[in-house]
């Protein structure tokens, strides 16, 4: 079959090549406009998917598999991002802002889902969609706007760490609930999921160093193959006991640290970009554009509420670190963007009764906030603030921990 040149293969190549080129073109446009490529990929998916401008049916299986791998690589990269000390620190200091973040941002989603008359589970998934900021977009925006040194930035990054960790629990639990069944069966599935996460997390934290040391020696090619293979293997094993495979991938990322982690990140990034782009494409691919239109009004309403709740989260989190009013507003605006995680969560609900509505609403919502978020962060310093707030902020001082000099 390889290079056999059958007419079907030829058509498949043309379809895949065409779609990837469209993604490349859209990505470039997004880069030029200074916004995330995710909404563009979603738009491309809408255009080529069910009910869109033209249909790709020949390669749907291939694209769906690629999309699944895309989710795994997104989470692997997320796990690689942090080292274990950072996670422990994050857990120690970030619990309160993290809880505030969850309550403030997930509640509107859940309430909205219930108002729309969805099943409680679909509403909980919508709560997940509105809860998590896009760590991809947020960290990119902070970097591009040169805000890494700003004093509110650690608070923003801590929120992202807590959200990512919370996902390690949320995703498998929700995945178990989606599979459903009897009450006893579901309870068992949730218990299995939590135990598996706990065991893998503990293993990753305790034996991560050994794994890292084992992979340290080889060439880049060897490391790439090892990490890719290990990720798929762990994800597959997790999936086979009905624990979300994405979490397996996340925990593999956590287990790899130090220079090996950095090298793995470098090697995995291009693969992740390719596969993740396909994931966003495929997600939108299954959405009927007419559903999207009917989701526009609720999507906009939810987006408006979500901007407000993330502003409140940033205000609270940065305030705890002693940051002034200006910085607290910057922290809030930086957190507004939703993206890859919201889509990953919505994709879990695909088999539910309200699945199509949920996916359409999530797509609209992410389309709006992935664009609004970076813009909001950019104009944060131009938002007029009452003079009282600004004045109080400059006199109140500072949250950094003093370190005695040697």
């Amino acid at each position, binding site marked *: 079959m390889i290079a056999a040149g059958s007419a079907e293969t030829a058509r498949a190549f043309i379809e895949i090549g065409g779609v990837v080129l469209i993604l490349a073109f859209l990505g470039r446009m997004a880069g030029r406009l200074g916004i995330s490529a995710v909404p563009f990929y979603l738009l491309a998916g809408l255009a080529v998917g069910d009910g869109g401008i033209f249909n790709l049916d020949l390669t749907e299986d291939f694209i769906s598999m690629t999309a699944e791998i895309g989710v795994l690589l997104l989470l692997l990269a997320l796990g690689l991002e942090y080292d274990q000390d950072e996670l422990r620190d994050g857990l120690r200091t970030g619990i309160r802002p993290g809880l505030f973040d969850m309550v403030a941002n997930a509640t509107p989603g859940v309430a909205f889902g219930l108002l729309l008359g969805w099943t409680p589970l679909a509403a909980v998934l919508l709560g997940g969609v509105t809860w998590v900021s896009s760590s991809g977009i947020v960290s990119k925006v902070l970097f591009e706007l*040169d805000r*890494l040194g*700003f004093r509110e930035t*650690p608070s923003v*990054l801590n929120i*992202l760490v807590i959200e990512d960790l919370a996902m390690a629990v949320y995703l498998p639990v929700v995945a178990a609930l989606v599979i459903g069944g009897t009450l006893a069966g579901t309870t068992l599935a949730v218990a299995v999921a939590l135990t598996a996460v706990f065991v893998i997390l503990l293993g990753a934290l305790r034996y991560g160093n050994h794994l890292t040391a084992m992979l340290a020696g080889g060439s880049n090619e060897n490391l790439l193959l090892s990490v890719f293979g290990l990720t798929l293997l762990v994800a597959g094993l997790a999936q086979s006991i009905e624990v979300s495979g994405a979490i397996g991938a996340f925990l593999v990322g956590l287990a790899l640290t130090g220079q090996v982690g950095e090298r793995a990140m470098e090697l995995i990034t291009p693969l992740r970009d390719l596969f993740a782009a396909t994931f966003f494409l495929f997600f939108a691919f299954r959405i009927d554009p007419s559903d999207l239109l009917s989701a526009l009004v609720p999507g906009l309403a939810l987006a408006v509420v979500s901007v407000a709740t993330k502003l409140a989260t940033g205000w609270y989190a940065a305030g705890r670190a002693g*940051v*002034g009013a200006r*910085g607290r507003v910057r922290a809030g605006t930086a957190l507004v963007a939703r993206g890859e995680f919201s889509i990953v969560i919505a994709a879990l609900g695909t088999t539910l009764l309200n699945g199509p509505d949920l996916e359409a609403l999530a797509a609209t919502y992410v389309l709006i906030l992935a664009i609004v978020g970076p813009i909001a962060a950019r104009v944060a310093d131009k938002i007029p603030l009452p003079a009282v707030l600004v004045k109080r902020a400059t006199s109140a001082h500072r949250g950094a921990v003093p370190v005695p000099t040697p």
Partner: protein
Amino acid sequence: MAGMPIVRETKLPGVGVRQEFTTHDGTVVGVLGHHDGRADVLVYDRDDPDRCTSMLHLDEDDMRTLGTLLGASQITESIGAVQQQIEGLWFEWVELTPESPASGATIADGQYRTRTGVSIVAVIRGTSTVPAPEPLFEFAAGDTVVAVGTRSGLAALRSLLRP
């Protein structure tokens, strides 16, 4: 280290560590050390003390150059410990001060391996090096202790040697 101001340290998960101090003329200056070895030099705004008015992005060569221009020897001295990671293993150099409880004591006295899990692999004294020192090796002020272990173990060792 008379006259050296307090250095405040903040961790940025996924990015690195930011250290900052206030200069004698009242400007807050920070250095953001990235995990990948690069660093940013930050100068904070006086009106909005949370934002930086300027940011210098330095790669490792730039850092060395700037360090040399500022007098790197003073910097190494005041940092006192250099840490380096090689494939999952952490190395650390700790210079002993006369006040250090280890100065004049033997390695066995300190029970460092039992207490911190790290191994002391060498001691640098003046221009000579003692590789794999015996348990009865006696430290002297000015020795540089080279140790290998986990990051937390090395931190524990450092606090034992330079409390």
